[in-house]
């Protein structure tokens, strides 16, 4: 037998073995999918009956395949349930050893296994899971640390906030600020007190910023004094986040300090923009005068934020914006016209402009120039004074003020 023949036989053998292996893998996968399709609905139905107290029995699961499907069915159901049904599932989940199994999974060499294990423990674990999750906060992978932090806040154990905060603050950059804040928010409204206390301690700047964001999201009225103190902090990033937070909390006590920051030239533009925007969220009309000065700012963002806030601060604010409307950019006009429209105020403004209010006529004309014409087009369809005025404004020939006709 020649060397070439032997080589051909070996190559053909290898090829055949490869094909057989591929066929075997495909058949095995198809068989597994088939089994899953058959067993999963049965598992789901039995778990549902157990959860809603129709039955006391869970399906028997002898093989690792069956145990996996049962575990998944219980997790899926627990995710959708609250109250007694959830507690019942949580208890049985632990009794079946699934929590202990997931806690062991936190030490798996595979990244995804550790993340999944943390998710399972967070969904259905209890206080006994806190120590392994705390160890997970020091995992070498950010995703695992994040998942463990989330699991800890979901379990809601006492005294974990400081560790969780430290771990989350490390992830800033790798994981978005919103996602990090969401983890802390899962601790619920009681977290505000613990976070407020942490803010009084000497914290790392990243941690302070995160705490301030979460206090704002929690609308933590009781933490206003601590957040207000952050406005004096030399860290501009912290100050900007404190402005956003105070806007969300909405305590009128914050209005004047925020207006002072918006006007002052001591802070960079993004801090002044945040302060001016927060003034509108608080809605205290006493700061109109201070905020009007920001309309003269040479920077677009603070000016636009001030205009957006002023239109929310009643008639005086609206009047101040109308007086300066010709000096504002079309983008800025379009933005706050949109705000007025969302608040259902543009129709009344056009009606008042139609009967001769000069400031509002300037505002409507500016809105048309900025391309915000939807409401004008809608009104132009009607045979009313406002309709005729809207049609004329759209055709660039605003008429003289009309006189309301008596019915």
């Amino acid at each position, binding site marked *: 037998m020649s060397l070439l023949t032997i080589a051909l036989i070996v190559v053909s053998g290898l090829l055949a073995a490869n094909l057989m292996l591929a066929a075997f893998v495909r058949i095995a996968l198809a068989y597994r999918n088939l089994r899953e399709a058959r067993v999963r*609905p049965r598992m*789901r*139905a039995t*778990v*549902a*009956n157990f*959860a*809603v*107290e*129709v039955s006391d029995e869970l399906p028997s699961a002898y093989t690792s395949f069956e145990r996996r499907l049962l575990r998944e*069915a219980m997790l*899926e*159901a627990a*995710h*959708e*349930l*609250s*109250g*007694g*049904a*959830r507690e019942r599932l949580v208890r049985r989940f632990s009794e079946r050893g699934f929590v202990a199994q997931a806690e062991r999974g936190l030490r798996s060499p595979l990244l995804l296994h550790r993340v999944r294990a943390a998710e399972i423990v967070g969904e259905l674990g209890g206080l006994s899971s806190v120590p392994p999750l705390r160890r997970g906060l020091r995992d070498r992978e950010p995703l695992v640390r994040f998942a463990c932090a989330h699991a800890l806040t979901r379990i809601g154990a006492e005294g974990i906030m400081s560790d969780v905060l430290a771990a989350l603050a490390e992830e800033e950059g790798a994981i978005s600020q919103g996602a990090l804040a969401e983890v802390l928010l899962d601790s619920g409204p009681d977290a505000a007190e613990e976070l407020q206390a942490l803010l009084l301690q000497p914290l790392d700047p990243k941690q302070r910023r995160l705490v301030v964001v979460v206090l704002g999201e929690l609308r933590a009225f009781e933490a206003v004094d601590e957040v207000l103190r952050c406005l004096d902090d030399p860290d501009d990033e912290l100050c900007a986040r404190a402005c956003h937070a105070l806007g969300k909390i909405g305590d009128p006590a914050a209005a004047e300090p925020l207006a002072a920051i918006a006007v002052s030239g001591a802070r960079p533009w993004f801090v002044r923009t945040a302060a001016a925007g927060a003034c509108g969220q608080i809605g205290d009309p006493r700061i109109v005068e201070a905020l009007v000065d920001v309309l003269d700012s040479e920077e677009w963002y603070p000016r636009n934020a001030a205009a957006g806030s002023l239109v929310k601060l009643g008639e005086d604010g609206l009047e101040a914006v109308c007086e300066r409307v010709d000096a504002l950019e079309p983008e800025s006009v379009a933005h706050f016209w949109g705000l007025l429209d969302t608040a259902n105020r543009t129709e009344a403004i056009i009606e008042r402009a139609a009967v001769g209010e000069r400031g509002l006529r300037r505002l409507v004309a500016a809105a048309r120039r900025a391309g915000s014409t939807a409401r004008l087009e809608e009104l132009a369809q009607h045979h009313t004074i406002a309709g005729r005025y809207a049609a004329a404004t759209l055709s660039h020939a605003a008429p003289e003020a009309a006189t309301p006709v008596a019915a």
Partner: protein
Amino acid sequence: MKVLIADDSEVVRRLVAARLLADGHEVIEAEDGQEAVELAVRELPQVLVLDRQMPRMDGFEVCTRLRQDPATRGVGILMLTDNRGENTLLESMERGADEFMTKPFSPRELSVRVRLLGSRRALAAAG
């Protein structure tokens, strides 16, 4: 009482159906909004447990269509949604939903609400 469950999640349908079947109701299921409207017109259930976000047609649109059709106008609608926001609640009410619950949900609460909603609707139809 005949109850239609419309939810694209099989897990939620199983859980709701298990509770309602145990309460002695007849249960029918739809996997999307379009199927929910078709089943509601054909089967005329007394109560509809309706998810908000579904393929093909969302829960709000299902509400609107059922309220516009004289044959299905009287069905009691319980919205069962993921979103606990004020806007979703208000929009649900404006579209004609009678009850509003958020997920995760308590099967016991759902059971009571469905029973009371069915009774209210039956009284309204009789009176």
